[in-house]
């Protein structure tokens, strides 16, 4: 275990106004633009959004793995109450893989083809705990057992190409969990897997999360995955959080028109759909050419002049849920009786 829980913080991770930009010759692309959210201790936060909404960049920013020409411009990333952006590179290396771990999207390419599975799990023991070869190997076998890989003594001497996708993702999880991290960042951990394996991997993550009492930041674009695993959900659109709620609220009463659109574009097996599946019209604006008002305005069926001209703030309601939409503010200049759910159904 890394350090006894420090009672002075409630959230394992607090992100405040994180800004990460990529710079081209004469252009600044704001991939993450003022993102804020919290992950309470031992909870799972899902980050949902379309491709290009800044989910992955947010997760890489947390580990400070943004590479040139990208740069974290501002904000705070408080991990256990300490700002990661103030840490030196050497301090960050001690945190990576030890206190914060990451699982990548592609189990096929995230393992080094020239090393055995055992050697790769051993790496984190050897980097962070300075264990010898034998000790590390013993612990690696335990890790493989933990993630439910049968006959780990044999698997440990195999190379990644000898394992199936699901097995490799289990190995990735074993590597990530080797040093008992307090926070696990999972960047679309199941996207590359087929559905039955997806369920297994999600169950495994959830089970281990409860066993080891760690926080998980789960990045996904699959609302089914969110429903199955998360406690809280942050919906991102164009580098900003547009809605932050607990899971139940998200599915029972989504507020932001974008969230509603996402929900409706998921096929429902218990409803007969006449005709086409609902879609969100239009496409994500280019990060280099953002609308000046609400970023969702060009695609929003309810957009008014206010939406098009002024960016709404992320407001917190009395239940602690956050929403970035003019409809729920006092300044709303459209139909006061607007019902996001009904109307968007009829328009689609």
């Amino acid at each position, binding site marked *: 275990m890394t350090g006894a829980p420090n009672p002075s913080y409630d959230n394992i991770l607090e992100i405040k106004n994180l800004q990460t930009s990529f710079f081209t010759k004469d252009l600044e692309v704001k991939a993450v633009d003022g993102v804020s959210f919290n992950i309470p201790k031992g909870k799972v936060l899902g980050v949902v959004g379309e491709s290009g909404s800044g989910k992955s960049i947010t997760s890489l920013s947390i580990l400070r793995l943004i590479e040139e020409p990208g740069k974290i411009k501002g904000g705070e990333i408080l991990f256990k109450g300490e700002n990661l952006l103030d840490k030196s590179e050497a301090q960050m290396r001690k945190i990576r893989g030890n206190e914060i771990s990451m699982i990548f999207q592609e189990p096929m390419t995230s393992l*080094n083809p020239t090393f055995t599975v055992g050697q790769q799990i051993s790496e984190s023991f050897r*980097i962070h705990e300075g264990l010898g070869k034998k000790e590390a190997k013993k612990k690696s076998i335990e890790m493989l057992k933990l993630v439910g890989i049968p006959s780990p003594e*044999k698997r440990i001497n195999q190379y990644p190409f000898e394992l199936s996708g699901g097995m490799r993702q289990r190995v990735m999880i074993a590597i990530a969990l080797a040093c008992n991290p307090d926070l696990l960042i999972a960047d679309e951990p199941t996207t590359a897997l087929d559905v039955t394996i997806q369920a297994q991997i999600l169950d495994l993550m959830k089970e281990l999360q409860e066993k080891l009492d760690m926080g998980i930041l789960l990045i996904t674009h699959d609302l089914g995955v969110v429903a199955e695993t998360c406690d809280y959900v942050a919906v991102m659109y164009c580098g900003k959080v547009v809605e932050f709620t607990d899971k139940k609220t998200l599915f029972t009463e989504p507020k932001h028109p974008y969230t509603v659109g996402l929900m409706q574009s998921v096929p429902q097996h218990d409803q007969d759909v006449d005709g086409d599946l609902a879609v969100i019209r239009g496409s994500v604006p280019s990060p280099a050419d953002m609308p000046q008002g609400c970023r969702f305005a060009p695609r929003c069926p309810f957009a008014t002049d206010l939406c098009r001209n002024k960016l709404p703030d992320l407001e917190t309601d009395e239940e602690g849920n956050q929403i970035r939409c003019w409809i729920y503010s006092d300044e709303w200049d459209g139909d006061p009786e607007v019902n996001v759910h009904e109307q968007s159904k009829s328009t689609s």
Partner: protein
Amino acid sequence: MSRSNEHIEKPEIAVKQPNPRLKSWKSVFNKLKKNKSAVVGGILIILLIIIALIGPYLTPYDPLYDQDVTNKLATPSSDHWFGTDNFGRDIFSRVIQGTGLTLMIGFFSILLGATAGVFLGIIAGYYGKRIDSIIMRFMDILLAFPSILLALTIVTVLGGSMVNVVIAVAVSSVPIFARIVRGSTLSVKKLEYIDAMRALGASDSRIIFKHILPNITSPIIVQATLSIATAILSAAGLSFLGLGAQPPTPEWGAMLSDGRNYLYNAPHVALFPGLAIVVAVLAFNMLGDGLRDAFDPKTRE
């Protein structure tokens, strides 16, 4: 959470798994075996090494001091298989003695050059940006000179001796390695498992030497084999010009140079060391070409 304990993948029992690393080397070896010229090259190299190791103890004459002055420039006979040179020394014994010398120059100069080149290339490729520009532009400068000219210049500056020949040939082989390694590093460092290693908290040097280097060994091995051939040729060339091995050292290039003056009335003096050079260079080239094909994952079987 019972689902996670059911496994779609069944463990394959009873099949005894050979070490996969060994298996991959075996597959390279099998491909190599099918390539006739590579096999010939390999056998020749092994022969040359055996000759270099035990040959000097079996030579009929001392390569330096058995000077049969009455029998100068004798043509090949049963006494002197390759004839004698202008001092009456047995050319066969000298060629044998020179084998080890030649192989050693080739081997050590490439060992030196490849080490430096790999190091520079991997640093340039991994860190990129300004470091990359500085290192690679410097390599470009070295590449701009024909390698023999570069080696010639270095030996001229350092003075003619075997050690300096090794250094000169090593320096002239650095840029090729740096280029190859830089390219491979660029492609490997973009792969996700390198990101995964960084997310695991590995330091730069650990990533470079433990995770990138093993992934780019095959082009290095191929280039090293081919470069040994070039190195042998360059070294022989330098000795031929009188800048390398000094007489009476039985270096093939130097012997060739000695024979130059007797090309009309005693061509065998130059012929045999020349043939020896041809055989050695050809052997390394054939093996190198074979290795390149064998390491290429696109050629199956």
